């Protein structure tokens, strides 16, 4: 896996980057379609939160990062994980409860972390990762790492006290963190109209002295540019930015969701704003990629995901014998 940002000047400036963006968005989508299928066939356990329709955000954001830069993710974290460079084999293996899964089968979809690619972990607690991101940013500042930390969270998470306390600390200490609100319109069934008395959720930054920007979260290029600027600001010691990416999840909140709180029309309407299709149009229009290039990226993505699933299936089921030993890190002598 190459480190995306190293490839990049501007996201649309090179074929290589355009291909990378498309391939990665496609891999996220195919990955989630594949695990949804496995889940539907009863081969996976637990719950699952799909980010289909939201792929531009993780990809655009992570393309603006270096490998050393860190992220914290959410319950809806497959995209963040893949975009930051995780190994899909170990992801699927985790979902299948295998020993070679990222968490050795102990965490599942909501707890995948990948230290090597700077992913400090998904989180099953809404808002739970936000103060953690701020803490990692404090480490960066104290240790003069020169890195940034991205805190991904949903619109719903902004109403948790954790957001509030973390945002204030980041602002007063000018920490190198970027708050990224993936506003998909709903926190489970709770619409942003009902949960907020605000036009733009990015205005919530005003209460902390944090600049806030709202933009189209389905435009990978816009996402990249806004992130790059916020990252630069963070790394130069000017403190956090709050980016609100407006997007939509096509699937239900989780498997048990009957979608009673929104209309089919609304969902269909948003499908026309597919971030992947949107990006394809742009790159073709600008003559950056051909239709064949595009098809090739999707083919590659499919191939990679199928290979990952097949490989993951071969893993050994996690063994209960190791549980007690896994609770504490051993005290080194």
């Amino acid at each position: 896996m190459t480190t995306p940002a190293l490839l990049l000047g501007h996201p649309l400036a090179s074929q290589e980057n355009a291909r990378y963006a498309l391939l990665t968005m496609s891999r996220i989508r195919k990955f989630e379609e594949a695990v949804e299928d496995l889940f539907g066939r009863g081969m996976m356990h637990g719950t699952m939160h799909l980010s289909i329709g939201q792929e531009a955000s993780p990809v655009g954001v992570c393309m603006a990062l270096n490998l050393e830069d860190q992220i914290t993710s959410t319950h809806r974290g497959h995209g963040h994980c893949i975009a930051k460079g995780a190994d899909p084999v170990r992801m699927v293996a985790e979902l299948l409860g295998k020993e070679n899964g990222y968490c050795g089968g102990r965490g599942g979809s909501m707890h995948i972390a990948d230290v090597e690619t700077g992913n400090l972990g998904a989180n099953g607690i809404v808002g739970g990762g936000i103060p953690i991101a701020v803490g990692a940013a404090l480490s960066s500042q104290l240790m003069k790492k020169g890195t940034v930390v991205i805190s991904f969270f949903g619109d719903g998470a902004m109403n948790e006290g954790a957001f509030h306390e973390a945002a204030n600390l980041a602002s007063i200490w000018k920490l190198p963190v970027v708050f990224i609100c993936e506003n998909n319109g709903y926190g489970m069934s709770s619409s942003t109209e009902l949960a907020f008395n605000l036009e733009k959720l990015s205005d919530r930054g005003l209460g902390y002295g944090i600049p806030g920007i709202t933009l189209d979260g389905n435009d990978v290029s816009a996402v990249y540019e806004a992130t790059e600027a916020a990252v630069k600001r963070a790394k130069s010691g000017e403190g956090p930015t709050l980016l609100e990416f407006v997007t939509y999840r096509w699937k239900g909140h989780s498997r048990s969701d009957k979608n009673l709180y929104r209309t089919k029309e609304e969902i269909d309407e948003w499908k026309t704003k597919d971030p992947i299709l949107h990006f394809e149009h742009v790159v073709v229009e600008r003559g950056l990629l051909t239709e064949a290039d595009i098809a090739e990226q999707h083919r590659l993505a499919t191939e990679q995901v199928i290979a990952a699933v097949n490989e993951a299936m071969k893993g050994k089921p996690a063994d209960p014998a190791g549980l007690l030993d896994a609770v504490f890190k051993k005290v080194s002598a």
Partner: protein
Amino acid sequence: MSDRKLTMSEALREAMSIALDERPEVFILGEDIGIYGGAFGVTGDLYHRYGKERIRDTPISELGIVGTAVGAALSGMRPIVEIQFSDFTAQAMDQIVNQAAKIHFMVGGGLHVPLVLRTASGSGTGAAAQHSQSLEGWFANVPGLKVVIPSSPYEAKGLLLSAIDDPNPVIFLEHKLLYKVAGTEDVPEGAYRIPLGVSRVVREGKDLTVVATGIMVTRVLAAAAELDKEGINITLIDPRTISPLDMEPVYASLAKTGRLMVVQEAPEHGGFINEVIARVVTGPSLGHLIAPVTRLAGMNVPIPYAPQLEKAAVPQVEDIIKQAREVVVNWR
């Protein structure tokens, strides 16, 4: 009605519906309890029947929700709060413990907090460590809270109605594996109340007294049916409320069986069930014991994700059979 084998979700919903009908001051608040019908479907159609004022969807703000409920309870209402997973009570612990539990006492009795906090507890759905805890021990060690753990649909309905009647804060812990299972007893259609603080003798047997709550009642019952075949007969006592805890039936049973086994899903270390052991060995039953007390509890690990790990982490029917058999056989 002769055949009313409801699920626990249905029974809980029925209790709330009765309370909503009986008392205008009852209302429900929580995340996704409206149109969505609740994360586990417990509120179901109540939103359509009672409207959005009384079945009040909230943003994702557990601390705010519980605090709001405390304030509403202080000033004339009787809120029922639903917290989707008991793990998220961690977000609201200040309002639960430092406010709700203590206000009546701290202010000298002039205020009280008639609040019910319902929440889904326990493991078994593959939701992993942040969605599967059994936290009854936290609440039990906080004076000022009542703590209820229903073990069947029939029990759930009667206990919830009593909890709503109670002028004090009640933590109502519903095991998520029980929600969708139909009970074996009929659930009467109208109102009935099961008083808080009265243990239930679920079944009687001569050899061993087992104390368990919630899902463990189901598992002990299954184990007991197996052990019956071996001629080992179990008395099962379900305290139903762990605060207050009614020990009389346990003492009475131990006078007959002389053997005690306690079972819980929560991690063994520092778990609530130790209270039962402590009362027995410091209390009137001590002289009746003819075998060492035995306890069976969850492993001291966060709840893992993979099904084979998750099962291993908490007592299963086979574990209960094995341990119960051992104590009876070894101490004939």
